[in-house]
């Protein structure tokens, strides 16, 4: 559905997007991640046909964006960053305008607009001018505009930015619901969103792709992925550490749960599944004073920081 080859964008001397190549097929939801200024929005603007690539190609459903822009735009629903809409219009007249431009007329237009209003829950504000709407409603008007023509390809630039948790949940459910028969690219800063809706994630930094895989694969890049965390009261920690010696590699790290910032033990076992059993056996055997034992899943934001900033993921503390 979406195929980018060596897509590059220069603004003067600044290289905003550097040889980005990837493709997204039907049924895939691609999470597009990266620090601010990494080139996410620029890439999306090129796919949507707002910016012309300096070099390289973007093809949507077989059409090249540079040579047949209108064909491409017919097949794309695009929510630009910040969801700009004509503020002096009402959602009703705005969506009417979009429907007309998208080629709907008469009854078909009314049904389409009605459906999409239902989907993004805009009914109660349909006849209020968009300028007077809350941020959440404005964003939903933008989303409605993008999905109105039921496009094969959806490009959503930060669709949940500025929404409250309930609205976020609703928009995510909407994306998941549409995912089956569309190719969707979603850019976001919220990493939990990637785990919630995306089947694949790409991280870009300084215009280049630095990671590409399923959210699980990305999680596996966290060195603490599948490691065991053992928490014990401060005075027992050293005892526990000695008792557990020999199982995996033990290090002390700062506990990172709210209210539990005391050091904990991190036992890395190189993805050895039996390690948790061995640890719990040892604890029972020696009757250790342990408060909690759990498997660390790894965290996307740690992977994200590590990849985009070369930051060491988990620092050992000198106890």
């Amino acid at each position: 559905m979406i195929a980018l080859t060596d897509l590059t964008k220069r603004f003067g001397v600044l290289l905003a997007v550097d040889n980005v190549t990837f493709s997204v097929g039907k049924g895939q939801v691609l999470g597009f991640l990266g620090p601010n200024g990494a080139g996410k929005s620029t890439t999306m603007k090129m796919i949507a046909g707002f910016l012309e690539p300096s070099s390289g190609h973007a093809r949507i459903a077989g059409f090249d964006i540079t040579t047949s822009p209108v064909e491409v735009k017919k097949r794309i629903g695009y929510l630009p960053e910040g969801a700009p809409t004509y503020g002096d219009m009402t959602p009703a007249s705005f969506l009417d305008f979009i429907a007309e431009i998208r080629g709907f007329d008469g009854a078909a237009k009314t049904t389409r607009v009605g459906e999409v209003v239902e989907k993004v829950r805009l009914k109660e504000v349909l006849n209020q001018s968009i300028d007077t709407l809350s941020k959440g409603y404005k964003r939903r008007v933008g989303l409605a505009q993008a999905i109105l023509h039921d496009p094969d390809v959806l490009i959503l630039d930060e669709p949940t930015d500025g929404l409250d948790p309930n609205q976020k949940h609703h928009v995510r459910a909407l994306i998941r619901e549409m995912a089956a028969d569309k190719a969707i690219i979603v850019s976001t800063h919220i990493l939990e969103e990637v785990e919630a809706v995306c089947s694949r994630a790409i991280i870009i930094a300084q215009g280049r792709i630095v990671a590409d895989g399923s959210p699980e694969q990305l999680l596996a890049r966290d060195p603490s992925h599948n490691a065991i965390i053992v928490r014990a009261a401060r005075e027992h920690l050293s005892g526990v550490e000695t008792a557990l010696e020999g199982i995996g590699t033990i290090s002390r790290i700062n506990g990172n749960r709210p209210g539990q910032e005391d050091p904990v033990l991190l036992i890395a076992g190189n993805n050895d599944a039996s390690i948790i059993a061995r640890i719990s056996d040892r604890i029972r055997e020696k009757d250790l004073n342990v408060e909690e034992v759990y498997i660390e899943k790894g965290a996307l934001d740690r992977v994200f920081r590590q990849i985009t900033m070369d930051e060491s993921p988990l620092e050992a503390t000198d106890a």
Partner: protein
Amino acid sequence: MRNILIITRRELKSYFATPVAYVFIVIFLAMTGAFTFYIGNFFDRGRADLDAFFQFHPWLYLLLIPSISMRLWAEERKTGTIELLMTLPVTTAAAVIGKFLAAWGFAAIALALTFPMWITVNVLGNPDNGVIVASYIGSWLMAGAFLAIGSCVSAMTKNQVIAFIIAATVCFLFTMSGLDLVLNFFRLWAPGLLVETVASMSFLTHFRAVMNGVIDIRDLIFFASLITFWLFANVIVVDLKKSA
């Protein structure tokens, strides 16, 4: 074609969704009236024609038309809606023409609302209505040329004030180019052909010709080609910003 009309309709509606349209129309009518009666000495002339009314149109347009055209593209760029518009399945040309037609249609509405002048002069005497129709058409064409310039300038910036000032300046040069003020500058260094070309670009000269009641095809072609040229430039400016 369909898309052009959809865009025109949306734009035109948005003029009337804000006070812009009403303020503009009221000011336009008040100023045409004031110029005609106080400066044009409509009554003292004792003649049943609308020369006193039409002769000030170029000067009024100089001020008022850039205030319509300045928002055409600059506002879209400022609010980001240009990203929405340009990712809809419309060509740049359709968007440019659609917006221009909306502004031109709006100018037509404002111009049409001066009809009491026409009625007045018909009540007071027996004017040559053919000349008046010709003058209205000429005035509207001239407004179109001003708007096309303003629209193109508006596409270059996201700042409406800059769009206004540059458009007013360019329009001023086109209006004045038949006068010595501008021509003397060119006479200093330019070959005669260029001086004549510049002189022939004058809105005043062409508009006065139409005002005399003679709709010369050359005057029509002049305004039509000027509109075409600036709208073409407008498309190029919008497309250039895409690859910038």
